[in-house]
């Protein structure tokens, strides 16, 4: 091969390379959020698309970080409950319980029976208030507006009941170390029973509207399948992991301080692990919770609602980690106390933070409409991610 031939060959190769470089197309990078209706809050999702297919997606959080762990270090134990109410703002009472349980464990306080029962009661009520909204919201994500209005309408009855007891619709701030602030008001029990009946009707209504709906099913079934072992390795909890067929529920497995072991109920699982399974499990959970509330109302023991607690609460030196099965999944507080008025360090393990950590894995290879389905069915609350 002569030198001119060589040179022309090289020039040809270079021209080809240039041409390929020019013709090569990059995927489109789309930025969902922080202000986007599907991220219900300020989650940001950066997705690289190839047409409508997601090549990779990454959730970016922290737009609503409020620094509760640090703030808790300069607040007394009573004041901390006001903060942690705002973590999962739809099921607020459930946030207080594990923290108070942890403090009580450190102080070695024996909580009266009635207080434990009412705690469990309010815990389940906040679960109903939280998840029933999800049941409607999921329809809204897929374009069905009506279920969302039904959910808002019927959730209000549950919130009314919570408000009658605690004085707060959204943020009860009702749990105290050693028991509860107040007892139940008169006439509340009968009213709550009728509300529970209403919530069961709501579940039936939602099932009629959505679960049997063909559009809903085609958009949910087989979308965002999480195999059990993958879900476990990402630390998923709550209905998200139960929908993958893992029979795991802290209410049954670690009933610390609450009275779930004295109730007759069932842990619902679904073998599929797709978005539809997650939705279905949550519908069943609301039903099961209404039944639990009715059992608690029937079996409520009498007695005091507050143990003997010193006027100024100083938690003795030590460490405690308590986690409970909150509406969104396992929520835990790691409390380190040095014997002061305030916790020395408080680590909050919130469910949504772990639940959305699976999104990069899950969104790979899905389509843009499925992003919404998957994010919606994973059901996170921004306050629970960012704390």
């Amino acid at each position, binding site marked *: 091969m002569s030198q001119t031939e060589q040179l022309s060959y090289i020039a040809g190769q270079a021209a080809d390379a240039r041409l390929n470089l020019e013709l090569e197309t990059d995927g*489109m990078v*789309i930025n969902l959020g922080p202000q*986007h*209706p*599907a991220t219900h809050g300020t989650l940001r999702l950066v997705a690289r698309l190839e047409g*409508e297919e997601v090549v990779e997606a990454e959730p970016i959080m922290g737009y609503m970080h409020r620094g509760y762990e640090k703030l808790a270090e300069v607040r007394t134990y009573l004041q901390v409950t006001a903060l942690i109410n705002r973590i999962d703002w739809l099921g607020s009472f459930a946030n207080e319980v594990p923290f108070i349980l942890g403090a009580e464990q450190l102080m070695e306080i024996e909580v009266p029976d009635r207080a434990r029962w009412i705690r469990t009661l309010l815990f389940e009520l906040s679960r109903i208030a939280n998840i029933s909204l999800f049941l409607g919201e999921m329809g*809204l*994500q*897929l*374009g*069905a*507006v*009506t279920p969302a*209005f*039904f959910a808002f*309408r019927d959730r209000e009855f549950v919130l009314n009941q919570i408000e009658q007891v605690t004085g707060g619709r959204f943020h009860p701030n009702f749990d105290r170390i050693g028991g509860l602030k107040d007892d139940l008001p008169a006439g509340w029990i009968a009213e709550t029973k009728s509300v529970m009946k209403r919530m069961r009707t709501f579940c039936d209504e939602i099932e009629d509207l959505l679960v049997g709906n063909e*559009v809903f099913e085609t958009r949910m079934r087989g979308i965002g399948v999480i195999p059990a072992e993958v879900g476990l390795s990402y630390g998923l909890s709550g209905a998200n992991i139960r929908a993958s067929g893992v029979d795991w529920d802290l209410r049954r497995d670690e009933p610390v301080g609450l009275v779930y072991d004295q109730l007759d109920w069932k842990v619902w699982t679904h073998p599929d692990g797709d978005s539809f399974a997650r939705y279905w499990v949550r519908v069943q959970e609301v039903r099961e919770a209404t039944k639990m509330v009715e059992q608690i109302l029937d079996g409520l023991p009498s007695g005091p609602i507050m143990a003997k607690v010193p006027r100024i609460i100083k938690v003795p030196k030590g460490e405690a980690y308590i986690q409970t099965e909150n509406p969104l999944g396992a929520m835990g507080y790691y409390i380190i106390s040095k014997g002061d008025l305030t916790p020395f360090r408080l680590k909050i393990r919130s469910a949504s933070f772990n639940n959305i950590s699976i999104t990069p894995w899950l969104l790979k290879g899905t389509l*843009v*409409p499925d*992003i*919404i389905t998957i994010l919606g069915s994973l059901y996170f609350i921004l306050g629970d991610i960012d704390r």
Partner: protein
Amino acid sequence: MSIFAIELAFWQQTIIKMVVVAAVIPAAALVLGYVFLLKMMSFMQSRLGPMEAGPHGTLQLLADGLKFLQKEDIFPDKADRRLFALAPVVVLVSTFLLFVALPVSPEGIVARLDTGIFYALAVSSLSVVGIMIAGWSSANKYALMGSLRAAGQLIAYELPLVLAVVGVVIQAGTLDLQGIVLAQANGEIFGWGAIGNPFILTQFVGFAIFLTAVQAELTQPPFDMPVAESEIVGGYQVEYTGFRFLFFFMAEFGTAFVFAGLASVLFLGGWYFPGFDT
């Protein structure tokens, strides 16, 4: 035009027709928008909907329209300004052109065309062009995705729409919309001609397909992928505000009105009412 028993010059007729069409399309959009978008949806969702503006909120959309007119006319920074301004007009023009072929009485038709239904289906596709222009010129990724989805969907559902109409055309033996109405008016059901022969009796499958395809053409739920509020936040409309957005809104509901008119002309006998002479 002799409905008022007055003979008018061509230019006078034309002006009257233009005024009527220009009045009917916004009015139709208002009525359909009020009845279906505001009230029917509200009652389904256990709420009342607008109640303040006018009796039972009847003037709500008028108030909204006034609000849209007062809004600032915003062009996105990177937008192609001319195309951005052109797109809503193209979409609205397609609605106006559709109206031309719709017969509302023996004489009440803007232009009687021999290929009436063919023309109507052809100009209804024009809106796709407007939507594509809107999506591209907005310089917005959501708008682009929405417009591409709209193009895909609208073209895909054009085919069942046309095929549903073909049955009627074969039975009537004409493409002329006026002729299709007359064919139904003069038809007989097994020799019994009291109510004519509405084509829905023989073409009920076509009627169902027509309504479904129209729903998709109008990007109404469950075919609302192009504007999916929860994922691409309104699709090609995402960057539009003020009266340009109003144009899209009017075009959507105006087209809904015209398609409803076409469905009644094709399948339900049009303006013909049994007992009245044609």
